[in-house]
């Protein structure tokens, strides 16, 4: 044979090593970083996770959801309910929230999957609104104003330093975990199926790819993971409220901008996008509404000029991939 099929390149292997070292360094942050640093990295991790998941849903499975905030809020509310009414340890409540959301996603998917394309998107938004309005009816959880995490529950997380470190590690684990999970998923046969579906539903259907099944599975998986992130967020903020926990701006608009600007349909895209988002926020957040106007304009500009986002452009131009999911043919000459 005069060729060899590989999955990685020198660049990708280098990137892998660098990433690993970075994760180790970040894991040690509670020892070298301040509270503010932990908070920032934790937030970064959360947005990276949300963006990676939305990218999987929209960029690969073709399910453009504008309602993921439903699960972010659901995660928070399930955690608070479990901690307040069932005495579950807050950290243990995180996977619980994930499971609850995955269950909830089954009937939701059955409903919204009846809609196509952009109507599907708005449908998911309606579902999120329903969740928000229902949450506002829950007097035991503060009704329309929400509630803060009571002291006795907060105490379960230990002293301030311990609490901050644990929440930080969970955030980091979710961020890195989602990234790795999505990467592995896309390298697997399911990933191949997703790429086939993305390129042509008709063709892949005729080849026997179970499109509906794959889409359902991805939707439910993403719902569960998003809820886990939402549960963590409620711990970071020590609070839930209908408007904040189910905020379309915080948990969908920003996430979509991150993915679009970074590069939809690539693994590296959400990483780049989150970095750009946080940089912009650093420099422009003081300007309030102008910052949001700029984000909106930037998203439009990218979509019109470079629809594959920053990373998409880079990858196409130089043919590089840091976290490869495809195969390469190396010709032996």
């Amino acid at each position: 044979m005069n060729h060899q099929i590989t999955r990685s390149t020198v660049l990708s292997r280098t990137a892998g090593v660098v990433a690993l070292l970075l994760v180790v360094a970040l894991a040690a942050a509670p020892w070298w970083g301040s509270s503010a640093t932990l908070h920032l990295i934790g937030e970064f991790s959360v947005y990276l996770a949300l963006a990676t998941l939305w990218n999987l849903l929209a960029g690969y499975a073709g399910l453009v959801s504008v309602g993921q905030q439903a699960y972010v809020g659901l995660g928070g509310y399930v955690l608070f309910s479990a901690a307040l009414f069932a005495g579950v340890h807050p950290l243990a409540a995180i996977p619980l929230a994930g499971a609850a959301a995955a269950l909830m996603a089954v009937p939701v998917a059955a409903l919204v999957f009846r809609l196509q394309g952009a109507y599907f998107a708005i449908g998911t938004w309606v579902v999120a609104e329903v969740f928000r309005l229902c949450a506002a009816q829950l007097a035991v959880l503060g009704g329309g104003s929400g509630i803060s995490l009571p002291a006795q529950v907060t105490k379960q997380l230990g002293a301030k330093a311990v609490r901050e470190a644990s929440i930080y590690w969970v955030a980091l684990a979710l961020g890195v975990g989602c990234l790795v999970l999505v990467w592995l998923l896309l390298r697997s046969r399911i990933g191949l199926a997703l790429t086939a579906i993305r390129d042509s539903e008709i063709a892949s259907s005729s080849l026997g790819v179970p499109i509906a099944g794959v889409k359902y599975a991805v939707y439910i998986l993403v719902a569960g993971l998003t809820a886990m992130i939402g549960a963590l967020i409620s711990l970071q903020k020590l609070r839930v409220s209908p408007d904040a926990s189910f905020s379309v701006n915080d948990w969908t608009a920003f996430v979509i901008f991150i993915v679009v600007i970074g590069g939809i349909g690539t693994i590296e895209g959400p990483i780049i996008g989150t970095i750009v988002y946080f940089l912009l926020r650093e420099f422009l957040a003081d300007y309030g509404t102008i910052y949001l106007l700029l984000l909106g304009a930037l998203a439009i500009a990218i979509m019109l000029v470079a629809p594959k986002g920053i990373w998409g452009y880079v990858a196409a131009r130089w043919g590089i991939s840091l976290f490869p999911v495809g195969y390469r043919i190396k010709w032996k000459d």
Partner: protein
Amino acid sequence: MDLLNTIVQGILVGGLYALFAAGLSLIFGVMRLVNIAHGDLIVLAAYAAMVVVKATGLHPLASLLLVVPLMMAFGYALQRLILNRTLGRDLLPPLLVSFGLSVILQNGLLATFTADSRKLDGGALETASFQLAGISVGYLPLLMFAVAVAVIAGLQFLFYRTALGRAFRATSDDAEVAELMGLDRARIYGWAMALCLGVVAIAGVFLAIRSNFDPFMGPGRLIFGFEAVIIGGLGSLWGTLAGGVILGVAQGLGAEINPGWQVLAGHVAFLLVLAVRPKGLFPRIDG
């Protein structure tokens, strides 16, 4: 006769929801585009009416004379300069661009007009009413409903009995072949969006008279319009009217049970229809 009153009021407000929805339906029919900023454009029209009223002292309804052409011109420009460039096989670009547009509109309105709640004064029309079978029917809601019916009838006439409507239908069927017939796709889409924003202008002015409005009301109006379209059935403008009415009545009944349940009741009605009759109640057997 509380129940009857609730239903009648619900039917009348359904007219406003149908106005929200008619533009959505039209644009989706012609170019398979769903504009996420649709609701925000309705709010933009409301603010435009406010500016016109302040500047000219006209009655809000009279401001339509200026607001409608303004919004139509804006729609034509928006379509030709931005949205036309997103149309194609891929579903993401128009969705994401219109999403970006939505954010820009909301924050632009916020920056220009602050978050204060506004309302336009409809004068005597707002409170005047007459008695019908023991129910107090307001002239404003009745007018809203009548205008909605007129707009939908007008759109139907346009689509099925005029050359422009023929061009819309042909472009919607097969844009490539339509171009082979001499139709300029870019211009046709521009006219469709102009028409849509004309309807949006009417909806916005009525919204402004009927209730308070602020820069962030857009998404809510989009959702009501969308629910009316889905309940009524894709592809049918009269179905959209029916959808609006059903939504209005559902919301009214919900509010009767508990004022906090008004919007939720509408969502529930929508989800029920989606579950039981996913194609809507009066769909066109279309692609």
